[in-house]
């Protein structure tokens, strides 16, 4: 007996319902208390800001939740600070020790990647079902150190391939409850993105050189005064804006590429970020944040979160209700205290 295949595909959009005014109050209180407590409060502030942003990122009527223990974040920050402080101090006492510690940091990187992915996944929930990350340190070492070395040795030619491998590692080892993520990400998409980005940067320099040559032939070097120096400033600002635009292009395209290749059981993500729109958001954010001496930071965060959520959706063949939580982790919540040292967020 064959059941008719369920061809009905549902498109569920993400949305973001946070408001800049409300987030501003949380942000500024966090900042103020962090400065007053010499940074200690920043761990609590981070959790509160993240809880706000996650709760307002909504899918099918439910928000996401974040419940990392602030003490674990504080511990991670102390470790990171000690590591960097140690490197700086070692350089004073014995310069060779500094290189040794840099090497150690490089070797620790796979562990840092895995530990923080696990920490963030485990502490994020949707409808009271936790995400998880099961990547192994050994594989992380192969992907990040091996792949990274290859990208370096090929002078960046292998970089798109390395990027794809990195993304596959991170995506495929995530799970939602008992449902593992899967990905059909290929390096080809990254090749297109990075070749185009390199062409955009290279093209800007060609245009600049041609423009400079044209100006020189037309006006000669008679205008070597104020105008040429303000033209210089305009050029630098223009180049910076162009750089931000290319950055936004890479961000938008890689976001879509990775989202579209992410499969969770019967659903697949769909990213529709547009590079031009994101570039406008980034550039206007820079102007707003600089113009308000940083006060617009909260507003800038909310705008980007709103656009990112609006550009993400899931296509699903099965109702979201069918996803099942991992009851083993629920039962073992106290047991996980054993691995407490690994239970921290190292933000580098």
């Amino acid at each position: 007996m064959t059941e008719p295949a369920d061809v009905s595909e549902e498109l569920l959009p993400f949305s973001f319902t946070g408001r800049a005014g409300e987030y501003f109050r949380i942000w500024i209180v966090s900042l103020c208390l962090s400065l007053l407590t010499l940074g200690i409060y920043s761990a609590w502030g981070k959790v509160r800001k993240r809880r706000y942003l996650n709760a307002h990122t909504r899918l099918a009527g439910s928000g996401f939740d974040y419940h990392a223990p602030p003490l674990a974040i504080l511990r991670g920050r102390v470790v990171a600070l000690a590591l960097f402080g140690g490197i700086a101090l070692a350089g004073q006492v014995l310069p060779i020790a500094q290189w040794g510690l840099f090497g150690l940091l490089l070797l620790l990187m796979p562990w840092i990647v895995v530990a923080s992915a696990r920490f963030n996944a485990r502490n994020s929930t949707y409808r009271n079902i936790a995400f998880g990350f099961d990547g192994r340190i050994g594989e992380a070492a192969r992907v990040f150190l091996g792949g990274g070395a290859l990208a370096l040795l090929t002078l960046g030619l292998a970089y798109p391939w390395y990027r794809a491998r990195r993304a596959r590692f991170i995506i495929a080892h995530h799970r939602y409850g008992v449902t593992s993520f899967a990905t059909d990400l290929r390096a080809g998409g990254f090749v297109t993105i990075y070749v185009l980005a390199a062409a955009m940067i290279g093209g800007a320099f060609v245009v600049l050189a041609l423009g400079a040559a044209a100006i020189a032939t037309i006006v000669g070097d008679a205008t070597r005064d104020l105008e040429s120096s303000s033209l210089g400033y305009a050029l630098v600002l223009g180049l910076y804006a162009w750089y931000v635009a290319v950055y936004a292009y890479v961000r938008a395209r890689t976001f879509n590429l990775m989202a579209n290749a992410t499969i969770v059981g019967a659903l697949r993500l769909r990213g529709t970020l547009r590079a031009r729109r994101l570039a406008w958001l980034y550039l206007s954010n820079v102007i707003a944040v600089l113009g308000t001496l940083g006060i617009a930071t909260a507003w800038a965060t909310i705008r980007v979160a709103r656009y990112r959520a609006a550009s993400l959706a899931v296509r699903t063949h099965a109702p979201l209700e069918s996803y099942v939580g991992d009851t083993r982790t629920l039962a073992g919540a106290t047991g996980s205290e054993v691995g407490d040292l690994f239970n921290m967020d190292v933000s580098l």
Partner: protein
Amino acid sequence: MTALEGILYDGRSAAPHPVTVRIDGARIAIAGPGMDATLDRSDIEVDSPVPGVARRLRLPGGAEIETADHASVDAAWPGRSNLTRVAYWLESRNLMAVLALVVTAALAWFIVTAVLPLAAEPVARSIRPEAEQVLGEQTLRSLDATLAEPSELPPARRETIEREFASLVDDEPAGNHIDLQFRRMQTPNAFALPGRTIVLTDEMVAFVQNDDELMGVLAHEIGHMAGRHALRMVLQQSGIAVLIAVLAGDAAGITLLAVAAPIALLNARYSRAFELAADDHAYALLQRHGRPLQPFADLLRRLAENRHTADPNDPLLRYLNSHPDLDLRIHRTEAAARGP
């Protein structure tokens, strides 16, 4: 008795179950389609509140009820008076947000103007001069590769300057380790590199009217070196970079310019303090050697006059721009020359 509406997620499946929670003293009744449970209030754990974020009631066994009814939750579970309660109270009030903004701005200004300069000084002293010397040598090498040409001063002129310089620094700590370098750079300039190197340009030697003026310039650079200003400047700039990253690091895509622009703005402030400190050092040094201060003031005045007539593309103006508040410096130098 109060009642609140919420959605129960059992933690086993992602299905939402609308429920009504009736709170009757310590007795909590949860009712919904196919669900009817009674619990003790103390069995239920409530999360700490964040403004605008739905509350979550954690039930024994891993289920969770999400509700937007902050008031009912707060009434039933008043909670301990702890840090997150204080944060919630602050975050819920516009007035407190404004207050936090004012306090943050004041603290940031205090850190930039007082804490960083104060902290950079002992840190700079704790860094070995050898480590700094490496940095200075690298800078000189890159200068030689780009802007600087070998000096074309006549050997006799050069020897006179070196002799006078040696007698000026004979009582400076580590004075005989100072390395005076001559270069041609199209600009009347003298500058102290990190470490123990002072660079003097042929154009500056030509610009001065006598050796007392020249020794004034060099004494000023020795002041920068003795105060380790180059290193302290770098340290203070790094401090600002960290501060900006903390203040505005949340917003995506802004960090690069957001760090560079304020550093450029605050540089002028730091640089002015270092210029005045280097001048003070120069006054003491020149006076110890029985050299007059007035020539140094004369030189500064001529540089200032040049500033008003100079073409914006004039290399001289670029030198002047690195020495702000020239009028103040002239005034101070002349006051010092008149004596106490």
